[in-house]
């Protein structure tokens, strides 16, 4: 699996239990379930007291790279008191996780002391958990972020254990009102500075991006990232293109994700329908992953990625030829495609029928197009002539069948229509 603008757009799924819900057993299945539907990487964002053991199970059973946010666990070790965090404790956490086999670390090293006041007038302040932890630490000690001051020390660990950086956007906007502000873009410039340092150590870097951004402000994010971070792969959370649809934020963010993917974002972090509301369950994970597969694939198509359209073409051909089984099998989510079809036309007959229940047999545009072609071939005339003549005949047939607009599909199938 490779992440970069010149490759397929990748997606990440976040999983992880909390102190109050979900077990290691459930999280392992969530990880397997997420990769089944297309997660290219999985981030284990578990909190609570058994993070170490949970991660062991997830890493050992994962077919894809695992990312973490080590500051979450470091914070557990100081009982949630951000001001008690130290470099030594954080360093031990990095080594602990690197030796378990974590593939990439989100490190919020760009949350600098001078940026923190810039968030004061925001509608939603600092919404990144890692960002708020580091901001709190900076203010409590009135010192520069220790992840920034110890960045070279972190690099030394990364290259020894082959762990990649995902430079965290701790100051990402948490609302449409806060998008593209000085705090967000100031941090992005610092992430660019850190990227150069990491590259001097030959350590791979991704840059994390927003967040909540309206559509007309998305492109600026991608352009600025390419410029300020020297084309390091961008890895964004959505972005969510509106704030008004809790319960549907996989969609509000899928819109932004497709757009930024097209502009060159390399990996899209999924958002589930539970965003802002609760811990996603297995169903939410699937919904989020499928939504993001759609966004990533739409971006691959728009970018003209070689071969990306093969599956679309196969699907369209199957659709035009009414090969229902093939349409289900080619679908990103075959189970849902089949069950939606069967909800209205459950019989096996309907799976060879040249229509679905959306329009019915006589109003199916694809069926009509095929009829026109067949008719033209059989009569040796052009498709336009066929259309004209066909309309006259259909009109006659319509009247002969009693001029009913609604016909019984099952009956038509049995008549061999």
């Amino acid at each position, binding site marked *: *699996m*490779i992440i*970069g603008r*010149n*490759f*397929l757009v990748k997606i990440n799924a976040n999983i992880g239990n909390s*102190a109050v819900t979900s*077990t*290691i*057993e459930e999280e*392992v299945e969530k990880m*397997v*379930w997420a*990769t*089944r539907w297309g*997660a*290219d990487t999985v981030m284990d964002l578990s909190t609570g007291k*058994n993070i*170490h*053991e949970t991660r*062991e*199970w997830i*890493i*050992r*059973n*994962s*077919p*894809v*790279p695992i990312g973490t946010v080590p500051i979450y666990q470091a914070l557990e070790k100081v009982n949630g008191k951000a001001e008690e965090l130290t470099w030594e404790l954080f360093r*031990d*956490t990095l*080594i*602990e996780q690197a*030796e*378990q*086999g974590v593939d990439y670390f989100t490190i919020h090293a760009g949350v600098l002391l001078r940026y923190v006041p810039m968030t004061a007038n925001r509608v939603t302040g600092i919404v990144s958990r890692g960002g708020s932890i580091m901001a709190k630490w900076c203010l409590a000690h009135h010192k520069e972020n220790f992840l920034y001051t110890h960045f070279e020390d972190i690099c030394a660990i990364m*290259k*020894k*254990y*082959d762990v990649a950086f995902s430079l965290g956007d701790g100051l990402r906007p948490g609302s449409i009102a806060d998008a593209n502000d000085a705090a967000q873009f100031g941090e992005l410039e610092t992430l660019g500075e850190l990227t150069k340092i990491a590259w001097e150590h*030959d*350590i*791979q*870097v991704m840059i994390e991006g927003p967040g909540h951004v309206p559509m007309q402000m998305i492109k600026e994010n991608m352009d600025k990232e390419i410029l300020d971070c020297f*084309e390091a*792969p961008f890895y964004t959370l959505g972005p969510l293109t509106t704030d008004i649809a809790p319960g549907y934020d996989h969609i509000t963010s899928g819109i932004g994700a497709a757009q930024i993917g097209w502009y060159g974002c390399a990996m899209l972090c999924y958002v589930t329908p539970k965003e802002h509301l609760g811990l996603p369950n297995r169903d939410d994970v699937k919904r989020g992953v499928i939504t993001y597969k759609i966004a990533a694939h739409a971006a691959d198509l728009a970018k003209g990625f070689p*071969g*990306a359209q*093969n*599956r679309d073409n*196969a699907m369209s*051909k*199957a659709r035009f030829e*009414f*090969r229902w089984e*093939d349409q*289900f*099998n080619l679908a990103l989510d075959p189970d849902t495609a089949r069950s939606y079809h069967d909800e209205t036309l459950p019989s096996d007959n309907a799976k060879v029928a040249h229509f679905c229940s959306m329009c019915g047999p006589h109003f199916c545009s694809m069926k009509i197009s095929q009829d026109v072609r*067949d008719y033209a*071939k059989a009569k040796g005339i052009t498709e336009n002539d066929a259309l004209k003549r066909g309309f006259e005949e259909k009109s006659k047939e319509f009247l002969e069948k009693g001029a009913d607009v609604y016909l019984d599909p099952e009956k038509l199938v049995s008549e061999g229509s």
Partner: protein
Amino acid sequence: MSKKESIPSLSSKITRDAFPASKKIYVNGSIHNNIKVAMREISLSDSKPMFSNGEFSKEKNHPLPVYDTSGPYTDTEIDLDVKEGVPRIREQWIFDRGDVQRLSDISSDFGKERLLNSDLDHLRFEHIKKPLCAKEGANVSQMHYAKKGIITPEMEYVQSERIKNYRNTNHLLNRILASILGLKFQMKLRRNLFGMKLPEEGQ
């Protein structure tokens, strides 16, 4: 509020169903003969007979290879045990490089503390190997190898996603050389020192 912790067991729900009308295919590497790039292949039915140019013809629709991240879970021919983990397919690639050592013990204080805490025994994954780490002075990142012009098995593996005709090995080889070496290598490659897993690639 607290919860009751539980770990996976043989009776745990771990989804292992294959995708409908699909099978796993594995394409051998051409630079590295010990890589098998996994993909999912969807089989398709024939087109219906069409009357054209005075005769009936029935078009065959070839199976479609697609990108697949599901790993061994959707290959029903592979036995998996959640207590053992997935096969460590990168382990050999890593040891073949000769720049990695297996440590005699874990290094972090917290890791040791957890290991010695017998209250956690019921939660542990049993088959943990000792950690791997670069030998003194070595840099084991994929970016480091790429800058030195080394095409690792990991690089050949991921290159498959850019190959339309993946069965043509010469084509594959040329594309890898042109693309991996020519690209500014500003991307993250799959690396897991425990060498367990790679996502399936293809298109």
